[in-house]
C-alpha cells in the first residue's frame, strides 16, 4: 500500500488526483475509468474539507491505495467530525433553482463512479472512505 498525507485544503486536490491517477494507470484502468475515479476522488476530498473539517487547513487528509487483481482500492482518511453520507438520488437541480439549496451532487457522483463505496469511522477518530474501481471487462 502506498500512502501520502496532504493538508486539507482545496489546493491539495491536484496532488491527490495525481497520486491516484498514477496508481490507476499502474492498475491498468482505462482512461474512462481514470476520469470517473478522478470525479469520485475530487468529490470525496471536497466533502472531507467542507464537512469533516468544516473548512480549509483544519487537518490532514491521508490517502492510500492498493492495486488489487481486478482494479484499484483506494482509501481517504481524515481526523475531523464523523459524517456518514448515505447513497443519494441525484439532487433536483430544477428544484434548486427555486429553493437555492445546494448539495448532494458530490455523494451521488461518488456512488455512481465507483464500484464499491464504504464510509466508516476511523479507529482513531475521523472518517475512513474506502472505494474500489474495477477494471472494465471487455465484451
Amino acid at each position, binding site marked *: 500500500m502506498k500512502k501520502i498525507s496532504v493538508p486539507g485544503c*482545496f*489546493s491539495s*486536490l*491536484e496532488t491527490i488526483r495525481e497520486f491516484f491517477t498514477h496508481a490507476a494507470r499502474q492498475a491498468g484502468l482505462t482512461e*474512462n475509468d481514470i*476520469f470517473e475515479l*478522478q*470525479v469520485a476522488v*475530487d*468529490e470525496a*476530498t*471536497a466533502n472531507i*474539507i*467542507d464537512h469533516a473539517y468544516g473548512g480549509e487547513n483544519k487537518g490532514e487528509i491521508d490517502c492510500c491505495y492498493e492495486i488489487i487483481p481486478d482494479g484499484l482500492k483506494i482509501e481517504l482518511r481524515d481526523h475531523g467530525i464523523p459524517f456518514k453520507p448515505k447513497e443519494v438520488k*441525484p*439532487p*433536483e*437541480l*430544477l428544484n*434548486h*433553482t427555486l429553493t*437555492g439549496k*445546494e448539495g448532494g*451532487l*458530490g455523494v*451521488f*457522483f461518488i456512488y*455512481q463512479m465507483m464500484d464499491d463505496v464504504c464510509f466508516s469511522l476511523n479507529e482513531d477518530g475521523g472518517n475512513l472512505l474506502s472505494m474500489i474501481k474495477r477494471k472494465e471487462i471487455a465484451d
Partner: protein
Amino acid sequence: MQTKVIPLKRCVLVEVSGRVDSDTAPQLREELNKITAGDNYKIVMDCNKLEFISSAGMWVLVNAQKRCKRFNRGELVLAEVPKRIFDILDLAGFDEVFKFFESTAEAVGNF
C-alpha cells in the same frame, strides 16, 4: 482553469479551459458574476477545452443560470461539451436546466 470572455453583439461568449474543481470554481463564479453584474444575461459557455468539472463547478453554473433566467431576461447555454463531461452532467440532470449545443456558432445563433 482559465477563462476568456468575449462580448458579442447579442450575447457574451465565455471560453473555459482546464479543470473546474473546488479550488478553481470560485474563479469561475467571479467571472460569471462580473458578466451578469454588467447586465449581460445571455451567455454562451464554450466548453471545448474544459477538461473536468466537479459538483462545485456545476453549482456555479446552476446559480448563474438562475440569475440569467430571472425575469426571462436571458439564459446560460453550454456548447461543445466533451463527451465524458457531458455524460456526468447528464447523469446529474443538467439537461433539464441547460441547453446544450454541438457548436459554439450554433449556440451564439440561438440568441
